[in-house]
């Protein structure tokens, strides 16, 4: 089991309340995944020539200001506990190469910010002040580990490409085969987690020019196992379920938003939910919303 939640706002009206809406959604699905909790939110709050890097200290305290000073001209840092968001005009490969040992990049791009940690939804939401976060879309995950260890690195979302975030409920059965194939092509992995393989597979599809819809079609062709996936990037928000629809998903759509969750109980308190079109995606049925 795991829990998946997401909101994709179609109008700016609720943007200031994104975190406030998502925290109870994560909380409602804490029973599906009490091990770890994570969220990726999207907001355009830096100039177009800047990138944001979501960073986490891996153990010892990190002097974030010193780190920013070493990241080149114009780099600034916003600190929240053991994590920070580095904002910089430098190119992504340069920044990623310069990140010192003891600091982990959990997501990067023009709009995305990622926090994830071991702990239940209430604990992690409180620790990172998720309720105060604004944005135009967000995806979250509550994890019950079945395939690999309970650590922050193993938790979701996985965000292995620019503005890409990926959450998964289920388990892949052929992930080792695909991991070997991707490794031969030069893809590097941080964990032995099955979801990370699919996340990096999607990232590779996107790098080759596919949109999220086509990338997820390739997941359907390539991966075997149980999965409900929610994937987002700067402009898109997409869901897909495996051929047997083994893992649940409920979608609620209104003129203001698309909200998705493993269970309707996570959607029941959203504003305007009584007027929403509520449905469950069919097996292998892709749903992609674009801005």
């Amino acid at each position, binding site marked *: 089991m795991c829990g998946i939640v997401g909101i994709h706002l179609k109008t700016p009206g609720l943007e200031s309340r994104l975190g406030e809406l998502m925290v109870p959604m994560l909380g409602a699905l804490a029973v599906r995944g009490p091990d770890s909790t994570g969220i990726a939110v999207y907001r355009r709050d830096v100039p177009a020539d800047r990138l944001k890097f979501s960073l986490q200290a891996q153990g010892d305290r990190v002097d974030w200001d010193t780190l920013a000073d070493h990241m080149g001209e114009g780099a600034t840092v916003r600190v929240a506990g053991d994590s920070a968001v580095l904002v910089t005009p430098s190119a992504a490969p340069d920044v990623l190469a310069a990140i010192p040992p003891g600091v982990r990049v959990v997501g990067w791009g023009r709009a995305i910010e990622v926090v994830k940690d071991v702990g239940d939804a209430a604990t992690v939401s409180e620790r990172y002040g998720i309720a105060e976060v604004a944005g135009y879309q967000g995806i979250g995950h509550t994890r019950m580990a079945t395939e690999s260890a309970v650590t922050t690195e193993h938790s979701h979302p996985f965000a292995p490409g620019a503005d890409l975030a990926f959450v998964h409920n289920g388990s892949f059965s052929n992930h080792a085969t695909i991991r070997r194939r991707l490794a031969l092509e030069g893809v590097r992995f941080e964990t032995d987690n099955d979801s990370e393989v699919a996340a990096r597979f999607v990232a590779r599809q996107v790098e080759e020019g596919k949109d999220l819809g086509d990338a997820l079609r390739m997941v359907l062709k390539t991966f075997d196992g149980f999965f409900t996936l929610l994937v987002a990037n700067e402009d898109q928000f997409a869901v897909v379920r495996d051929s*047997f*629809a083994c893992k*649940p998903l*409920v979608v609620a759509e209104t003129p203001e938003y698309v909200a998705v969750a493993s*269970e*309707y*109980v*996570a*959607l*029941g*308190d959203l504003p305007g939910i009584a007027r929403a079109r*509520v449905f*469950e995606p*069919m*097996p292998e049925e892709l749903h992609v919303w674009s801005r």
Partner: protein
Amino acid sequence: MVTVSELVLDCRELSTSEINRALRAAADGTVARIVQPRGRHNLAVGLQNRLTVTIDGNAGYFVGGLCDGPDVTVDGFVGWSLGENLMSGTIRVRGNASECAGASAHGGLVVIEGDASSRAGISLKGGTVAVAGDVGHMSGFMAQAGTILVGGDAGESLGDSLYEAVVYVAGKVRSLGADARFEDLTDVDVAAVRELVEAAGFDHVDAERVTKVASARQLYNFDALKDQRY
């Protein structure tokens, strides 16, 4: 004359256990209403008394599961495993039901006025599942005994690995599962469907024009008199 007062249980104020305990403690004949369910799981579960319970909105998983007696109505849609392991009584859903509706029901009647998702009536053990609309893939999977009536269309692999349960479909069948086959309607079938259509209130189903799906009996051995050990 007895005055029946309604027992109102509010999900905003009560835990699921408190709601189910209150229902279990109610006298036979009680009319109860569960308000503000907002997708809550496990409502009206494990009741053995003769109650009339209305759930006023959308509910979650296992609604009416393990019940033996009450009449439960949901004025909304429900999540997975509606009426799972129902022993007797009725459960009626005014909207749609998610996966595994009526799973393993031993008795009673589960009526869904909308559509049901995949695996409706999975492992049915003698209960009755009636769906006014469509059912999803793998419905009736390994159903051992009982009846499934589909007022609309059935998805892929209907009746896969059926035992003695029977499925009637008013609309189209996308495909049959392993060891399921179409059979001719007998007078007994028509009478059974007519009775069920009436109980469910399905005006749109003509009992003489449904398609019957039953086991081809190639996957298991029916001969109880053979020297078998279980």
